[in-house]
């Protein structure tokens, strides 16, 4: 059963209209800076806020029409993961997870709690008499299990990783993507973190000042911003799909189009793993003349200049290197290198500047 959640939300400054794909396991990312209204959209979908006007409808079943028709949060069948988990402080881990499981026998309920805890790899925490003393990552797993246990038809995640410390966040990020896709429940993730968006999302919608400015497959949105506003929000990194082909002493070899790039492996990776290869435009320098071969671990890519645009003191150079790259260099060096469309150059990228986001 595949349908859409039709969203047309008018609420304060928010004017958001989009159709959200409800394919099993499909992850939609709402991406935007803080204050852009993405959490308002999520809360309106959850039923925690009424909309002023517009309509939210699940396959023709109206959830909120801004007027008299409203289905309360408890009857929408959604699961919500709060930013800082919001576990019930006076309940055991098991009672927290089982809180939303109703209308079933005691045995069935226990089975559902177990299954949810296993899904988030927290089965070892099931006998904890209290949620006090859980680490941030553990608490977020329990909160996710609590959201999954009643078998919601839609899962909503509000900045699911931002309250966690950096190592925990990196570890849980890849795992979360796996959990979301394997549970077969469509989900909507709100985030302001581009790595999180790339790691978790299938499609992304960029929200600025309450409106959706661009939406589409996550890599397209992040690699090809539709306009300057979106580019400013999603960052100026290239994001290219790639695959890890070798790992050696903390360095990863990644196949990107016709090239193999060297990167410092900051996240846990496996050979064969699919990744996004991200490089900031400022970290791609240009050179003319033949690529100097032996200068590893630098990456040297032959490329042809496609276009240039002036941006203040910088020149943004779009390159065709078999894959499309964007470099930002200073105006004097652009003049010195005689950068112009058609010019043959070598793009140089330090391996520490190649960021890999597993997914």
């Amino acid at each position, binding site marked *: 059963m595949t349908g859409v959640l039709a969203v047309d939300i008018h609420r304060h400054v928010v004017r958001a209209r989009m159709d959200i794909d409800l394919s099993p396991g499909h992850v939609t990312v709402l991406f935007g800076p803080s204050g852009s209204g993405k959490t308002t959209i999520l809360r309106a979908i959850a039923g925690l806020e009424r909309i002023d006007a517009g309509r939210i409808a699940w396959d023709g079943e109206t959830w909120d029409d801004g007027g008299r028709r409203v289905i309360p*949060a408890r009857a929408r069948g959604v699961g919500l993961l709060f930013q800082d988990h*919001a576990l019930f*402080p*006076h309940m055991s881990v098991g009672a927290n997870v089982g*809180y939303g499981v*109703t209308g079933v026998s005691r045995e069935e309920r226990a089975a559902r709690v177990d299954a949810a805890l296993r899904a988030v790899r927290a089965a070892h925490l099931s006998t904890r008499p209290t949620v006090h003393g859980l680490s941030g990552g553990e608490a977020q797993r329990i909160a996710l299990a609590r959201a999954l246990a009643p078998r919601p038809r839609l899962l909503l995640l509000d900045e699911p990783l931002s309250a966690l410390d950096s190592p925990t966040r990196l570890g849980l990020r890849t795992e979360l993507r796996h959990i979301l896709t394997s549970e077969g429940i469509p989900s909507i993730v709100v985030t302001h973190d581009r790595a999180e968006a790339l790691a978790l999302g299938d499609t992304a919608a960029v929200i600025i000042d309450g409106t959706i400015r661009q939406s589409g497959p996550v890599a397209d949105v992040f690699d090809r911003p539709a306009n300057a506003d979106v580019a400013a929000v999603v960052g100026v990194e290239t994001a290219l799909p790639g695959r890890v082909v070798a790992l050696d002493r903390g360095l990863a070899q990644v196949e990107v189009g016709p090239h193999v790039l060297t990167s410092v492996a900051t996240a846990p990776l496996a050979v064969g793993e699919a990744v996004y290869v991200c490089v900031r435009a400022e970290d791609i320098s240009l050179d003319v003349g033949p690529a100097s071969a032996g200068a590893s671990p630098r990456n040297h890519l032959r490329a042809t200049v496609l276009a240039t645009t002036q941006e203040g003191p910088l020149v943004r150079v779009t390159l065709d290197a078999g894959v499309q790259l964007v470099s930002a260099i200073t105006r004097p060096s652009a003049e010195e290198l005689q950068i112009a469309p058609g010019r043959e150059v070598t793009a140089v990228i330090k391996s520490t500047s190649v960021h890999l986001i597993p997914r």
Partner: protein
Amino acid sequence: MLDWPSIVLSVQLAFVTTIVLLAVGIPLAAWLTFTRARWAVAVEAIVALPLVLPPTVLGYYLLVALGAQSPVGRWWTETTGSPLVFSFTGLLIASILYSLPFAVQPMMAAFAGIDRRLLEASAVLGRRWPTTLARVVLPGARAGVATAAVLTFAHTIGEFGVVLMVGGNIPGVTRTVSIDIYDDVQAFDYAAAGRTSIALLAFSVIVLIAVYSLQRRSGRPVLAGWVK
């Protein structure tokens, strides 16, 4: 000798008042704390009225509202065969109204301290409001509810003006301890008044120690600055 019938009556009255006010006050306090209705502020003001209104004024209106000439009083007399004023039931109604803020306000303070996201989590997890109140709000506000119960009980024990207006001074029926003290003083029996007074003084000190230790254990000022 202490006047035991008065003490027993006061304790009975305070006990029943406390039970009724917890049953009525918990949903009322929860509604006042969490509602978005604009007119809730008017309800809140009415609930707080006994804090500022002279007890004799409240007593006067109750006497008028419950008296034999009023529709309520007439109906009561026709149904039960006895008048509502100058009876234990009349006294109970007066006590409930008079102690309402002492039950509702500490609970509102405690409920307001509950993380709203816990209520939202409960709603999204499919639970109705009464379940959320029982399983999420009350367990997180135990100290506030206990404070409300203790204050209601103590306040009812000590009330005077309203009781005198509505209940009069019928031994064993409406003569409470504070009226007993007043009677003793009127009769120049200072020794008896002193005995009852010292008992009430000790009782009050014990109550306040109980309230403040509850407060300390919950780590939250459940009286939130409004109790003098």
